[in-house]
């Protein structure tokens, strides 16, 4: 199969270094915008009990993120400053164990991995909305379509759906006495 090509890549290096830098930059920018918006709100709070800790933690956090962005944009800075250079004690140890000996390799090529990740994110985002609007009875149908979408095998999808349904509806709902959410749409009917 075309998508079953063995590629010698670890989990983290499926992006080229340039793409990886851009991706990292975007993520840190997103985190910076998030913390900036949160800090902006803090100045609207009157109580010292409310403001003190968010500022005490939030301002250094914003500084750390800006520093990280600076190190990504100007990689030469790391040679001059120590802030981004310090290795954590366990870091090198863990790296040694997990990267030099690990046999876990992706069987997919870069494009395929990115495509699957996008699909997975979409499937994950859709699920809570489906459950919220249509209730938990939609869950087995979701699991069936999800498995079929990735495996393209109806029999496998049925088996996975059955396992999931027995585990959750058969066992957990009975054991824990959970009252399942009917969904906004069905509750309104």
């Amino acid at each position, binding site marked *: 199969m075309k998508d079953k090509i*063995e590629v010698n890549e670890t989990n983290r290096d499926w992006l080229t270094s340039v793409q990886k830098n851009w991706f990292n930059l975007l993520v840190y920018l997103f985190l910076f915008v998030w913390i900036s918006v949160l800090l902006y709100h803090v100045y609207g709070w009157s109580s010292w*009990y409310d403001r003190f800790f968010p500022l005490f933690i*939030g301002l250094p956090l914003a500084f750390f993120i800006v520093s990280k962005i600076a190190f990504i944009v100007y990689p030469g800075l790391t040679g001059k400053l120590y802030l*981004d250079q310090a290795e954590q004690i366990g870091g090198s140890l863990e790296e040694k*164990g997990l990267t030099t000996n690990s*046999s876990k390799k992706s069987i997919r090529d870069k494009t395929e991995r990115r495509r699957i990740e996008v699909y*997975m994110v979409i499937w994950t985002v859709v699920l*809570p909305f489906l459950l919220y609007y249509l209730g938990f009875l939609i869950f087995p149908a*979701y*699991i069936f379509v999800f498995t079929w979408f990735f495996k393209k095998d109806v029999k496998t999808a049925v088996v996975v759906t059955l396992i999931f349904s027995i585990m959750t509806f058969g066992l957990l709902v009975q054991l824990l006495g959970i009252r399942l959410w009917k969904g906004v749409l069905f509750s309104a009917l």
Partner: protein
Amino acid sequence: MAAPTLLESVFVAFGLLSDPYNLVLIFVAVVFGMFMGVVPGLGGIVALSLLIPLTFGLDPLIAFMILASVNGGTNFGGSISAILINTPGGAPNAATLLDGYPMAREGRAGEAIGASATASAAGALFGVLVLVALVPIMFEISLLFGPPEIFWLGIWGISVLVIVVRGNILPGLISGAFGLIFAMHGLNGLSSNVRWNYGFSFMYDGFKLVPALIGLFAVAEMINLMSEGGKITEEDAVQVSGGQWKGVKDVFEYRWLFLRSSILGTIIGTIPGVGGTVANYLAYFQAVQISDDPEKFGTGDVRGVIASEGSNDAKDGGALIPTLGLGIPGSAAMAILFGAFILHGIQPGPFLMRDHLDLVAVIIVSLVVSNILTSIIGLITANQLVKITQIDIELLVPIIIGVSFFGTYAINNNPFDLFITLIFGLLGFLLLKVEISRVPMILGMVLGPIIESEFFRSLQISGGNYSIFFSSPLAILLIILLVSSLVYPYLRILVHKAKVSQ
């Protein structure tokens, strides 16, 4: 009526565990823990995250019996895949493969599994014994920790964690600080005002811990695993064909090495926030350094397996000391267990020892029983267990994603919690991609409310005088430890540069 002693509580706990129904629950929990431990990418944190909501409806004693048993199962499960397929189930088993896998390649897989099983069970027993020995005085020790000391201990816990997880310091600091910020969302108990609710009324409760950690660990890992595709591992497992008994005897032969490693593991466990990876590797390296023939390590020396597994399991007993005694989680797994305590309305800390000694005893006994059970099951079924890693990821992911969201809802029967899991699932996936550890974030979320409330409580006690934070010897000691842990990595760079320039 006098409060029960620990011994009486332990007897009661044994009574509880001897009930056939509870024994079956322990057995199922151990098998589930081993399953999660064997599968690389899942492990103890994901296992506990998934189980907390599912055990929430049970009696607290039964719920913590199950959670402790799962924790016992995951530790040894990870070593089986490390030895047989050269891939640790989790980072805390990473050092085990350095000698475990070469042993397996030499046809000594049984000996490695036997040594790992025995060292794991005995290590866990050692850590628990230390915990039991400290329980009677833990209440008195914990009274030394007033609000200022708890405040510094919490800050130190996050700073230590930041420098021991993988990668460099800056991302760790960012992760920990974000965790603290997330903890401040919702209703502030000190002012009765709501902070950052994004316009949603369900956010008055803030980001709830368990839905957040299910998202950060279980959901994020599943998105990542799915993209890798195929089986959990493509490596063929080495078969175990006898020799387990020799491995058992090896532990007794190298008893002093085992004891040193267990002591090290227990001590490292007591340091708030430090997990099994550090215990595992430090024990391995001390074994190499003290050995007369260090060149043998890494080539299939059973001492490497004994040292790493002994310390890895001993750290759990140590990690329970700050978790139960001070209310400061000793490791990432303990941070999750901490979330379970809060969910059951129990506050870990000094009064837990006084008011819920029965619960402490159940955790202790469950850890002992589950570790012994895990080792026995592992010794018998290693060949079958490792086949789990041949399961197709695409079959595993939908079930775990489904159970994750199902579990999130089950905690409070609140559909809005599903969105918290989603937000943290996506955030966790982003953090995975940019190589920011998620563990400091969870610890920040657990410690955030404690740090903030103890800070203001200190000021209330002192009438607004900040000198209270520097007035006791214990507070000064914790400040020194905090500064040292933050400065140490930079000092290392300076020393290294000085050496290079020379």
